[in-house]
C-alpha cells in the first residue's frame, strides 16, 4: 500500500534551497536509468517545477554489461523558474557502475554530488571501464561530495520478502537509487508509488519489490543522514493553467490525432520501425478508437506508398522515419508532389550519414529535406523547436498539406523526440478546424471533371476521392496537361506545370506567420536558429543579457517557404549567428537566399549545444 512508504524525513538533516538543479542518472543499459530518470522527472513535474530532459542511450539494446558503450543516461534540469534546456553540467550524478562514472564524471559540476553504487566497483568492472585503480579509493573524487552506497546488497535485503527471485532481485536497484534521490531532493514519493502500482498491477511481486527498494533508498538517506544537507527546488511560477509532462514523439502523435479530428478525416499512418521515430507508431497504434489506422509496412517505401494510397482515398495520410528511411521514401515523395495529394512526412533526425548515430540528435537533414528529391520538387518544410511544440506543428503541417494539396515535410530530431518538458495544455476545442472540401461535382464543360483545374487563391487542385460518382479520373507520375490532367509531353506545358507547382508552394509564404524577434531589437547581433537548438539559443541569450550585453534571437519554424519578413529581419542586424547541429546547412540557405554574410556555429557531436558554447560565440562576436 502506498501509505506504508515514508514520505517525511524525521532526520535532522538541514535543507538547502536551490533555484535550479541538474541531475543525471547513469548506469548500464540494463540498469533502468531511463525509467529512474523519467520517474524523477514526472514527480518533479507534478510537484510543479519547470523542467527539461535529455535522455541518452546506446543504439544497442543491451551492449555488453559494464562496458563504456553500454552506458545509458538520463539528465533532467528542474527549476523554480522557466528554463529552456536540460542543463550543461549535472549538479548531481548517480553512477551505477565504474563505466557510468568514467563516461560521465567529467561533466559533473566542480564540487557536485556523486552517488555511487559501491557494489559494482569490483576489479572486473573497473577494468572494463578502463580504471587502473579504484577511483573510490584514490584521490580522483576529491573535491566532490561523494555518497557511497552498497546498492546491490541493500536492494537484495530490501526485496527479500517480496517474492522476486533470481535476476529480478537486482532489477529493482534503479528504484533504490530513485528513493535515495527522492530523499536528497525532497521529491514527492506518491506519484512514483502510484506509477509502480499501476504499471506492475499484473506483476504484484515486481511491484512490491520496486516499492520496497524505493522505500529502502529513501530510508537509507534518512537513517544514515547521507549528506550534511538535502536540497529543495520550489515549484516554478509558471503561466497559469493545466500542465502535463510530454516528450516530442508523444506530442507529435497527439498532434496528428488532433489534426485528424480538426479535419474530420481518418488518420492513416504508414511506416516502418526506425529509431528514433518508432515511438510515434507505438503511441498512435494505441489510439484506434480515434479512427486511427496504423500500417507497419514491409519497408520504408511501402510505408510512404501506403500513405499515398490513403491520401488518394481521402484520409489524413502520414508517414514517418529518420534520415536513412526518408532517403528511401524520396522517390515516392516526388510522386506525391506530382500527384498533388496531401501527405505529412515526418523525419525524426539522428546522426548520419548512413546508420550513423541512431540514438543521437543531429540537424543534418535540412538540405536533404529542402532539395533531396529528383526533379523540381520543392515541398513545404516545417521544423519543430521543442517537445511540446510538436503538437501544434503537426496540426499546422496537416493544414498546409490539405489546403495546398501537397506533401509536407515535418522535421523533428532525437532531442525533441525523447526530451520532455512541461506543456501548458491548449484549449483543444478552440483550435480552428482544418477545412476539407472534397470535390463532389464536375468542374468542366459537359459534366467533365478536370482534376488539375486549380483553386484561384491557393492554386490547389481539387481532391476527388474514389467512390464519388462522375468524377472518375486518373492521376500519375507522368507529366500532366494543365487543367485536364491528361498525360502530356508538351514542352510549354511542362514549363507551365513546373512553374505552377513551385509557385503554389512559394505562395504558402503568404500564409506563414511573420518571424518574431525575441530580446533586444536594438542589439548588434541576431542569433537565428531552427529546430531543437531553440532552448540552448534562448538560454544563451539570457545569459548574455545577464552580463549586460544586448542580443536578439529568432527561430524558424517554416524552412520552406521561409517567412516573408525574414530578409528584413536579418538585414536589421549587423551580425547574424546561426548555431546548428550540422556543418552549416541553414547558413548556406541564408547566404544563398539573402546574400548575407552570416556566421555559423556548428556541432555534430551527437549531443545538443551546451549553453556556454553559444554564449562564448556570441561574446566573441560582440566583444
Amino acid at each position, binding site marked *: 500500500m502506498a501509505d506504508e512508504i515514508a514520505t517525511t524525513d524525521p532526520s535532522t538533516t538541514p535543507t538547502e534551497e536551490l533555484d535550479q538543479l541538474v541531475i543525471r542518472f547513469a548506469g548500464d543499459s540494463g540498469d533502468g536509468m531511463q*525509467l529512474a530518470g*523519467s520517474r524523477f*522527472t*514526472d514527480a518533479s513535474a*507534478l*510537484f*510543479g517545477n519547470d523542467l527539461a530532459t535529455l535522455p541518452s542511450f546506446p543504439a544497442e539494446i543491451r551492449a555488453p554489461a559494464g562496458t563504456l558503450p553500454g552506458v545509458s543516461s538520463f539528465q533532467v534540469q528542474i527549476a523554480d523558474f522557466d528554463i529552456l534546456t536540460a542543463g550543461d553540467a549535472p549538479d548531481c550524478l548517480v553512477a551505477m557502475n565504474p563505466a557510468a562514472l568514467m563516461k560521465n564524471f567529467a561533466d559533473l559540476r566542480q564540487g557536485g554530488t556523486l552517488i555511487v553504487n559501491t557494489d559494482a566497483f569490483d576489479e572486473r568492472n573497473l577494468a572494463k571501464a578502463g580504471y587502473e585503480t579504484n577511483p573510490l579509493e584514490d584521490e580522483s573524487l576529491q573535491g566532490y561530495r561523494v555518497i557511497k552506497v552498497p546498492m546491490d546488497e541493500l536492494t537484495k535485503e530490501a526485496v527479500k520478502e517480496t517474492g522476486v527471485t533470481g535476476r529480478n532481485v537486482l532489477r529493482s536497484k534503479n528504484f533504490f537509487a530513485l528513493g535515495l534521490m527522492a530523499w536528497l531532493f525532497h521529491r514527492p514519493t506518491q*506519484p512514483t508509488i*502510484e*506509477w509502480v*502500482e*499501476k*504499471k506492475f498491477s499484473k506483476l504484484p511481486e515486481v511491484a512490491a519489490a520496486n516499492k520496497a527498494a524505493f522505500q529502502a533508498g529513501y530510508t537509507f538517506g534518512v537513517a544514515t543522514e547521507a549528506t550534511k544537507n538535502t536540497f529543495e527546488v*520550489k*515549484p*516554478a*511560477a*509558471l*503561466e*497559469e*493553467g*493545466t*500542465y*502535463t509532462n510530454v516528450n516530442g514523439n*508523444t506530442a507529435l502523435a*497527439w498532434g496528428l*490525432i488532433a489534426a485528424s479530428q480538426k479535419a474530420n478525416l481518418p488518420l*492513416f499512418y*504508414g511506416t516502418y520501425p526506425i529509431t528514433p521515430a518508432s515511438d510515434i507508431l507505438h503511441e498512435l497504434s494505441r*489510439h*484506434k*478508437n*480515434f479512427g486511427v*489506422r496504423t*500500417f507497419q509496412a514491409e*519497408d520504408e*517505401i511501402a510505408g510512404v*506508398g*501506403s*500513405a*499515398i*494510397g490513403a491520401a*488518394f*482515398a*481521402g*484520409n489524413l495520410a502520414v508517414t514517418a522515419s529518420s534520415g536513412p528511411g526518408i532517403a528511401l521514401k524520396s522517390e*515516392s515523395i516526388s*510522386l506525391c508532389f506530382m500527384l498533388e495529394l496531401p501527405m505529412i512526412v515526418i523525419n525524426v533526425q539522428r546522426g548520419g550519414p548512413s546508420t550513423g548515430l541512431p540514438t543521437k540528435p543531429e540537424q543534418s537533414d535540412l538540405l536533404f529535406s529542402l532539395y533531396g528529391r529528383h526533379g523540381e520538387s520543392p515541398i513545404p518544410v516545417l521544423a519543430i523547436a521543442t517537445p511540446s511544440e510538436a503538437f501544434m506543428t503537426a496540426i499546422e503541417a496537416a493544414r498546409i498539406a490539405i489546403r495546398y494539396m501537397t506533401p509536407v515535410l515535418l522535421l523533428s530530431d532525437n532531442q525533441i523526440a525523447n526530451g520532455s518538458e512541461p506543456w501548458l*495544455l491548449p484549449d483543444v*476545442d478552440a483550435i480552428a478546424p482544418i477545412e476539407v472540401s472534397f470535390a463532389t461535382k464536375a468542374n468542366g464543360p459537359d459534366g467533365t471533371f478536370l482534376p488539375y483545374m486549380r483553386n484561384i487563391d491557393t492554386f490547389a487542385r481539387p481532391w476527388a476521392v*474514389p*467512390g*464519388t*460518382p462522375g468524377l*472518375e479520373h*486518373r*492521376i*500519375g*507520375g507522368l507529366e500532366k496537361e494543365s487543367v485536364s490532367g491528361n*498525360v502530356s509531353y508538351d514542352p510549354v506545358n511542362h514549363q507551365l506545370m513546373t512553374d505552377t507547382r513551385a509557385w503554389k508552394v512559394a505562395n504558402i509564404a503568404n500564409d506563414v506567420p511573420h518571424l518574431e524577434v525575441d530580446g533586444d531589437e536594438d542589439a548588434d547581433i541576431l542569433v537565428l536558429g531552427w529546430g531543437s537548438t531553440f532552448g540552448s539559443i534562448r538560454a544563451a541569450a539570457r545569459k548574455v543579457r545577464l552580463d549586460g550585453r544586448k542580443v536578439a534571437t529568432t527561430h524558424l519554424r517554416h524552412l520552406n517557404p521561409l517567412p516573408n519578413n525574414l530578409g528584413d529581419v536579418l538585414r536589421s542586424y549587423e551580425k547574424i549567428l546561426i548555431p546548428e547541429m550540422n556543418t552549416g546547412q541553414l547558413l548556406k540557405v541564408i547566404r544563398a537566399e539573402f546574400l548575407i554574410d552570416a556566421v555559423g556555429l556548428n556541432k555534430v557531436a551527437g549531443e545538443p549545444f551546451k549553453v556556454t558554447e553559444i554564449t562564448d560565440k556570441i561574446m566573441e562576436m560582440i566583444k
Partner: protein
Amino acid sequence: MTAPSYTRADFQTDQEVRWCPGCGDYTILASVQMFLAGLGRPREEFVFVSGIGCSSRFPYYMNTYGMHSIHGRAPAIATGLATARPDLSVWVITGDGDGLSIGGNHLIHALRRNVNLKIILFNNQIYGLTKGQYSPTSEVGKSTKSSPFGSVDFPFNPVSLALGAEATFVARTLDMDRNHTQEMLEKAYEHEGSAFIEVYQNCNVFNDKAFIQLTGKDERVHNRIDLEHGKPIVFDEGSKAVVLRGGEAEVVDSSSVDPKAILVHDESRPDPSVAFALSRLSHGPYGPTPLGIFRNVKRDAYDISVNAQVEAAREKLGPGDLNKLIRSHGTWTVSPSSPNGSTKGSSNGGSSD
C-alpha cells in the same frame, strides 16, 4: 431497383491507347472492360493502380479511378488505399519486371497479408518499355540486348512464388483467351482478400511467340492443362492425366493409370502444397502447363481485420476524446492563489517513457 447496365464503352477513356499494334495488352484491356461492363457495378467503385512498364499504362485507359505510380510500388499504394477504404474494389496492374523484380517485396507482402486487392500480373517474360532486356521470368539462356551471350539468371515461376507467399487466390490465364480471362477476373472479384492472376501476355515486338506452346493451333491441344475444381486433371483430349507421386505432380498417359489415381483438382484445399506441385508441372510456358485457378481459400482479409480493430476499439473505449488524451499522462495545475504560484497536481498513473 434494376441494376444499371453498362457496356464496354462506359469503361473506356478518351485517351489514345499507346501500346504497340498487336500487343497482348489490348486483349487484356478489352477483357477487363467487358468483365466490368457485365458486372453491373458503378464505375466509381473501382480503382486501378499500376506501377511502371508497358502494362502499367493500363489505368489511363480505364474510365474508373486510377493511379499510375512508381516502378514496383503499386501493391503498397493499393494496400493503403484498400485499408483506408474497404468499400472500394482495388485492382493492381503490374508486369513481370514491375511486380517480380523491383516490386517483388511489396507483392509478396500484399499476398501474405491478404489485402483485398486484385493483382493482375502481365507476364511477357521481357522488359518492353526499356526496349528488350531479359526479365525475372525470362528463360535461362535468353539472348537480349543486355544478355548478348544468353541470360544466366534463373527465372521465377510467378504462380509458385504467389503460392509460396501463401496467397489465398492464385490463377493463371492467357491474354488471347478472353473467355477464360473474364472467368478468372470474375472469380478474383468474388474472392475476399488478395487475388493473384498471372496472365501470359505476348510481346510481339521483343518476345513474340513466347507462349506459342499454349496458343499455337497445333501445340495448344497437347500442352494446355485446364484446372477445373472438383474434376480429374486430364488434357490432350483425355489422353494425358496428372497424378501425384511422392508429393510431386506428374504427367502420365491416362491409359497407364487407374482412373481413381488421377488427381482431382481441389482449389479450396487449405494446404498449398498440392497447388504448388501443380505449379511445378512446368517452369514456364514450355510443355504441358496448367491454366485456371490453382488456389482459392478463405482467410481473413487484412483491410477487414484492420477496420474491425478500429471498430472494436471504438466500442470498448468509446470515440476518442482529445481533452482526455492530452491529460492521460497526469497533469498539474498552476493557479495564482497557490503558494509560489503553483498547486500540486495529481498523477493519473500515466507514464512518459
